[in-house]
């Protein structure tokens, strides 16, 4: 979240500088230089808008958090590559992994949707995507109490309509 915000601020700064340079150089030196910085301003503006959108989505995910974990492992279905990730927030509208955002539920039935959730003693396995691509995400959830897991599952059901499949906790309570 912080890295997204920092990048947005950087783009805002770059935009201001490039606009200023376009105006100054246009007035003092040459029209070509002004045009170059004007084009740079347009590109920076586009990047700033994109980053602002990401920042807004990240804010939405953070505001509606269900679970926050310090580490995660992400993999894509039909591909054997697995990627370790930084701090992860699971929320009603998607997942924020470091500066990467995986959104679901933002465009209703027409966009990416959460399909299933499985929780065992160590990991939470989420499947989400649309018709073109399905993503799998493995999280080390770090939860040690059964009540906390049930609480997270209940929140997931309430907020996303997906019932989590909990396994491996029955044996612990029985032993």
């Amino acid at each position, binding site marked *: 979240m912080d890295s997204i915000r920092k990048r947005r601020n950087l783009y805002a700064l770059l935009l201001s500088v490039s606009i200023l340079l376009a105006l100054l150089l246009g007035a003092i030196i040459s029209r070509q230089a002004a045009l170059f910085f004007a084009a740079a301003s347009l590109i920076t503006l586009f990047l700033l808008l994109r980053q602002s959108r990401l920042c807004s989505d990240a804010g*939405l995910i953070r505001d509606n958090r269900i679970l926050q974990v310090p580490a995660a492992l992400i993999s894509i279905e039909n591909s054997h590559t697995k990627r370790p990730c930084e701090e992860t927030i699971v929320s009603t509208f998607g997942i924020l992994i470091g500066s990467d955002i995986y959104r679901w539920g933002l465009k*209703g039935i027409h966009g990416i949707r959460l399909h299933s959730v499985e929780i065992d003693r160590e990991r939470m396995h989420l499947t989400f995507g649309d018709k073109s691509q399905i993503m799998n995400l493995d999280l080390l959830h770090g939860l040690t109490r059964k009540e906390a897991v049930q609480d997270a599952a209940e929140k997931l059901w*309430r907020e996303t309509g997906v019932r989590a499949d909990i396994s491996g906790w029955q044996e612990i309570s029985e032993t």
Partner: protein
Amino acid sequence: MSKIKTLNAERLSLIGFSLLFAYVLSFQFEGQVLYSLLELSKTDSDSYILLAIIAHFAGLFTSGIFIKSETSAKRMMLGGMGLCLIATVSFYFPLPTLWLIALLISGYFSGAAVAAWGYFLRAYTAKNERIKTCADALIYSNLLMIAVNVLAMNRSPLIGLSLSLLCLLLGMIFIGLLPQEQELKEQKSLSKKASASIKKPLFLLCLFVFIITINSGLMYQVFNPAFAHLTGLVSWYWAVPYIIALVIMRNLPRKVKRSGILYIGMAMIMGAFISFMLLGRDTADYLIVDTLMLGACGIFDLFWWSILGEMLDYGENPARTFGIGLSANVFGVLCGGVMGMAVTSIGLPGAEVAVIALAVVCVTLVMLPPLNRQLVLLLKNHAYLETYDTMSRSEQTNIVRQIKTLDPLTTREQEVLHEILSGKSNREIAETLFISENTVKTHARNIYSKYDVASRSELISNLLKNQTAE
């Protein structure tokens, strides 16, 4: 007993307003009495007429600032009519400069007095009966106007002026007899709740009224001078098609879709301008042109007057709602009038004037369907939200369950939907559910997607259809 009392109050208010409006129509607002007096004194009428319309517009538009209760509405009606009376007396004396000041005063205060009637229309007329009350007010005032016009144009403008003043005086007496009653608590709470959402429908209505009435302004400036030589006929027939259209529209069965008749009205306006372009300037030609044009005016006027009447429940201040709605009409007439004055001053031939008018009609025609749809949808929503709010929780749940979704709603979405149907804004929902406003907006978008609708209005409208289809 109280029913009889309300009935009497309704009649008193209706008669009082009709008399005030008859004064406005016959004298102050492009009235034949004013035209005849200005003609008699050989004064340039355009500046006087424009000043009177601008002052009337200002009175209607600003009345909501100082009329904030039924008591102040009654005071404004009585005081405003009194000031109009005093100002209009100056027309017995040949002092054109004084007439300008008199028109400024009478224009402003007659506008404010008309807007103030919004309080009485809301207080004394039942919600779904306002179309009839509005129709009655327009019919009575136009009948009185015809009587005044006939005498002013065929006998003497001063007799017409005296009759206009008599209308004003009698109107004051009837308004003075109105009982001072406390507004119903229910009405107040409903107004408070819905006031936040009235801006959009009111803006749409004003836009609709403004565009429609540009043609009326053009008509005053283009048709009237062209048929001025038929004084006898014009004096009494002018508003007859208008009154007939009002009577027909007033007595239409509830089942008839009034919005469809708007298209007939539009065709009548087009027919009127085409006839004006093709026909001559004889009696039969006048009958055709006037019947088409004024008949259409009757259809449109009652349509938006009745919508404005229904809207009074959804604003905190009915004088403001009523005044702003009517001011859009006056503004449209003003703009149409200025256009008309411009085209007649440069001496454009009748055919070209008609082409300009037809261009305005075409713009109106393009704008009418989306405007009408939005307006009707929003009003239906208001009506539905009110009904939904009075239902029990189980009835509310049943209504929501009866509508099929493309995908089941989550528990959180059901909570948000319930709040939406209770008429709450996104901010209010966020406060109730302890979530951010952005979260509410995202949930709302998802709900719309699951119901396959594009907006909150459409969602509520679908619920309404479902309920009425049962």
